[in-house]
């Protein structure tokens, strides 16, 4: 135990570990807030679809040779989010099919582009780290950390300011519309926020594991809590705790950050689920 503490305190002297910790906690917090909306609106898969879009966009950024790939990934992902969440009423392909189509298409195109134009010698290593986020959280530059902090703070502010409106639109869009709430505007805001969080979260867990970060805390919280506010608060706490534990374990044990965080989330879900069953059988 003493040894582990010693090891941790040694690691925490490095600025990049501190950065990773700050960014990880903020991203986990944002993802969990967003997760509540997406799970309850039955949009759980949007996060997954968008993360694939972000992967494709990142490939384009690599090919073009941009150093800050967020300049390309952010706009493309936001655009796709808006289009996907608009739930085209007149479209001939149903909502879930559209998400699946867009997500695999951008995945394929992204990998193809990287393969054709890659200048790096370690192609599969690059792709793997984009997909599973193995090291990117530890290699963040100063600017990226600040961008992360500002965007997360903005997202949390938006969530708090529009909390009551988001609740109304999520619970019953028809009623909200009928009583004069501009539901489409809030859906648009939600779409933009989803895209921003997905792009940010790619650094932490990689594009394949983002939806775990988004849906697990909410699903865990829903096992135990019955009101919207308590679900929001509980999922935020669960998400931040899992992120911290996941990152600490991965530092000590040398496991990949993303998957460790997700495994922590799965464990919490299992525990909450068991508690729910035990409570129910009484």
């Amino acid at each position, binding site marked *: 135990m003493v040894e582990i503490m010693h090891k941790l305190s040694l690691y925490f002297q490095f600025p990049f570990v501190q950065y990773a910790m700050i960014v990880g906690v903020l991203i986990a917090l944002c993802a969990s807030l967003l997760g509540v909306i997406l799970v309850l609106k039955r949009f759980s898969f949007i996060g997954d679809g968008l993360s694939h879009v972000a992967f494709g966009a990142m490939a384009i950024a690599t090919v073009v040779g941009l150093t800050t790939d967020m300049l390309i990934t952010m706009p493309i992902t936001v655009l796709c989010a808006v289009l996907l969440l608009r739930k085209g009423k007149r479209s001939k392909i149903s909502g879930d099919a559209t998400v699946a189509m867009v997500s695999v298409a951008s995945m394929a195109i992204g990998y193809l582009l990287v393969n054709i134009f890659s200048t790096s010698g370690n192609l599969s290593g690059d792709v793997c780290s984009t997909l599973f986020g193995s090291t990117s959280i530890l290699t963040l530059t100063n600017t990226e950390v600040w961008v992360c902090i500002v965007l997360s703070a903005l997202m949390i502010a938006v969530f708090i300011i529009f909390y*009551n409106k988001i609740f109304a639109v999520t619970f019953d869009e028809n009623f*909200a519309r009928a009583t004069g709430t501009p539901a489409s505007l809030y859906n648009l805001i939600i779409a933009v926020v989803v895209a921003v969080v997905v792009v940010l979260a790619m650094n932490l867990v990689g594009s394949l594991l983002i939806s775990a970060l988004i849906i697990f805390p909410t699903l865990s919280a*829903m096992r135990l809590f019955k009101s919207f506010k308590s679900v929001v608060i509980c999922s935020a706490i669960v998400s931040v705790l899992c992120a911290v534990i996941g990152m600490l374990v991965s530092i000590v044990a040398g496991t990949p950050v993303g998957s460790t965080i997700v495994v922590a989330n799965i464990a919490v879900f299992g525990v909450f689920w068991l508690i729910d069953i035990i409570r129910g059988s009484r």
Partner: protein
Amino acid sequence: MSQLSCKNLNIGYGSKTIIDNLSFEVESGEYLCIIGHNGTGKSTLMRTILRLQPLNSGSITLDDGVKLNEVGYLPQQTPAQADFPASVWEIVLSGCLNRCGVRPFYNANEKKRANHYIDMLEITPLSKRCYRELSGGQQQRVLLARALCATHKMLLLDEPTASLDPDATQELYRLIKDINQKEGITVIMISHDLTVATQYCDKVLKLGDSPFYGTRTEYIQSMQIEHNDNQGGEVNG
């Protein structure tokens, strides 16, 4: 004075017309019941009045100081609500959202208003409970309280008793009649149930093949005439 007047409505989805050339008026404090078979456009009419869907032609005007966002609405339940974690209090309070405007949080007045309607609909003991654990009748009361929070003039109810047992149905009818009489709120209700059309409401609007619009007494008479005609037909045939 008329609170809602609809003139020569043509309603439908895109080019498909469901209701054509419909006109009716609802006076302040009146209780109108909309009946008709499935697919005759009852819900579509209500959604059009609420501007949830575009009007093909004709005009819908709200008078008597009612603004569009001051109409209370009780929609049919959506499947997503079945497992939504929300307390009764949170849901009822969300009916006050149209009073907030750009203000992000509810003020004391709005909370008082939510409490008032929770009391009135006799769901005070449930206010901390989770919506998805309530019975069908309790859930409808919660949604009714929310609709009342949103309005002080007019309520639109889309088959509020669709999934209720007979006792809960009668209870809800009594509450709605109370709201209509004691609070003076105009009620427009879609129903499959003829007891509303023949016992509770002031006026009846029937959509479909044999449309009807008139007072409840006129409707009962027209039903009797139709009934006699049918019996006469059988004897002659």
